[in-house]
């Protein structure tokens, strides 16, 4: 009786684990792929390698102490984390940051959005093989990080806002530096577009790859540029304006098909629109105090609040429950990348292995935020 020997070429499905350490998974993400030849039959994401218990920490630190911890979540766009939380607490305390603080907040948050998208573009292009775009994006990002460093002393984990407003007054030469950046930047975006947008190879790698239809996106809870590229017109800056966004004039790019190419175009256009906001903001920063009277000990009244902002990656929401003490009773962070990553599986089914890398890049995930 002969037994059938299964060799490598007999089996149809192989399971390959991509990660947790892998040059293209943007952090410690493990994707378990079931492949039939080159086609992906199933994809399962394993996360939690970077779980640090931020939400638990929130219950044991005071409201003010907790703000720097949040920088470490989405460490690429730390300013947004700070903004969302400070605004949530200000909502609970029923105070409003003064106009000067609001304008500076908008300015720095938009610079932060540009810097996050630049990093996204660099790493996404690098994964697909265009090495040079990566270095060009980082050259521009340096300029933004210099502004942050001059303002608050840190480039990455900035802790730039406080509950009630700002901590630091603007430094001499801030407006000048921002104006120089705003003047140069649109031509740089044009440079990236020249390299990628009409490039045959780029189109081939991103067109019709990782399609997420409008209904799928809404069902999965996807937010941010991924949702807008699928055709849903929703940007929290326009629908529920916070900080001083209502005073600014900007557009929201909407895509059509929801494939990787559309997400690329939406984010490129968002960079341009953010530059527009920054150029408007830097001209009309009002004078006045930079921080509202909040008091040394922050004790919001009993109750809960949910406040969401439009972070570069999507809807960043904070659900804070207070029990009238100096420490929150519960802080919940709704990470945009966490919910977006759920959609990876259906975006990748039926595609090839090389497309998985492209799709992970296009979702723009940060594991610090996903795992908290």
């Amino acid at each position: 009786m002969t037994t059938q020997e299964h060799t490598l070429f007999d089996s149809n499905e192989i399971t390959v684990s991509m990660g947790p350490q892998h040059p293209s998974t943007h952090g410690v993400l493990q994707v378990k792929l079931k492949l039939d030849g080159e086609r992906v039959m199933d994809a399962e994401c394993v996360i939690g390698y970077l779980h640090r218990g931020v939400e638990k920490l929130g219950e044991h630190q005071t409201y003010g102490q907790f703000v720097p911890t949040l920088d470490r979540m989405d460490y690429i766009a730390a300013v947004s984390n700070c903004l969302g939380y400070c605004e949530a607490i200000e909502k609970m305390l029923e105070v409003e940051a003064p106009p000067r603080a609001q304008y500076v907040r908008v300015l720095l948050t938009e610079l932060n959005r540009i810097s996050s998208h630049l990093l996204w573009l660099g790493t996404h292009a690098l994964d697909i093989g265009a090495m040079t775009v990566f270095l060009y994006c980082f050259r521009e990002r340096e300029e933004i990080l210099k502004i942050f460093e001059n303002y608050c002393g840190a480039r990455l984990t900035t802790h730039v806002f406080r509950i009630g407003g700002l901590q630091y007054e603007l430094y001499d030469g801030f407006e000048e530096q921002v104006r120089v950046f705003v003047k140069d930047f649109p031509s740089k975006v044009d440079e990236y577009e020249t390299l990628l947008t009409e490039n045959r190879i780029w189109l081939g790698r991103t067109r019709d790859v990782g399609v997420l239809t409008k209904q799928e996106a809404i069902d999965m809870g996807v937010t941010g540029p991924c949702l807008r590229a699928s055709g849903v017109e929703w940007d929290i800056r326009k629908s529920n304006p916070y900080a001083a966004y209502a005073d600014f004039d900007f557009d929201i790019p909407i895509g059509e098909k929801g494939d990787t190419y559309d997400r690329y175009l939406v984010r490129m256009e968002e960079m341009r629109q953010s530059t527009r906001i920054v150029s408007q903001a830097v001209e009309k920063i009002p004078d006045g105090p930079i921080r509202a009277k909040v008091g040394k000990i922050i004790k919001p009244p009993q109750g809960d609040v949910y406040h969401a902002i439009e972070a570069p990656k999507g809807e960043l929401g904070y659900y804070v429950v207070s029990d009238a003490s100096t420490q929150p009773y519960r802080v919940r962070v709704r990470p945009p990348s966490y919910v977006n990553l759920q959609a990876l599986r259906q975006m990748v089914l039926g595609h090839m292995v090389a497309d998985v890398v492209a799709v992970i890049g296009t979702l723009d995930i940060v594991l610090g935020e996903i795992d908290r």
Partner: protein
Amino acid sequence: MAEEDEGRQQPEEAGSHEPVADSTADRGAEKPVVPAPPPKKPASGAKPRGPQKEPWTDPLIEALEKTLPDQRVDSYTFLGLRHLVVRRERVTEVLRFLRSNPVEAFDFLSDETATHWPDDEEFEIVYVLFSFQTHNRVIVKTRVKEWESLDSATSVWPGADWLEREIYDMFGIRFEGHPNLKRILLPEDWVGFPLRKDYDIRLQDVEWVRKHLGIESGQKFYVGKAKHEDD
């Protein structure tokens, strides 16, 4: 124990972490649909200040009452956000109604999370919904006892999948009908649910650490021992 108390910086020392007396304590009991009066602050002599809960009744609530009677426990507006408290038995039907009702459709699930109220031995599950038409949010809350389970919202929104997995991972709440309810952020064989209030912040699953990392965790408190026992 003194040693224990100094370590725990829990709200215990700050005073009150029992929930506000009235409207919240009514949950779980069979309650008529009259919204509870706004809570009086247990103030130390000062007049009630701070945000108040305003009752919320509008066509949406009326439609809800008509379609799913007796499910609403309370509905109020607090700090500009509308809150709807419902009973846990048919929470998915309430969500489905909210998603596709003609008055104001809340077709986007922003977030789903939970809070532990150990004094009531309850978890409060919170759904945050958003409407694309009116750009409004509503927070839907429901309470389950610590030993009870809840219907999964994945039948209404597939995107609740990972959100509920995280709630299960952190709190231990089981969701009926969830396609893949297993731990997501913590390792699969971790014992203990960290975000519960009886899980000390320095607690670790020492067995897991010993087995997988081969080292002694060195934490004072560990799962399996009662709170008052030290090493």
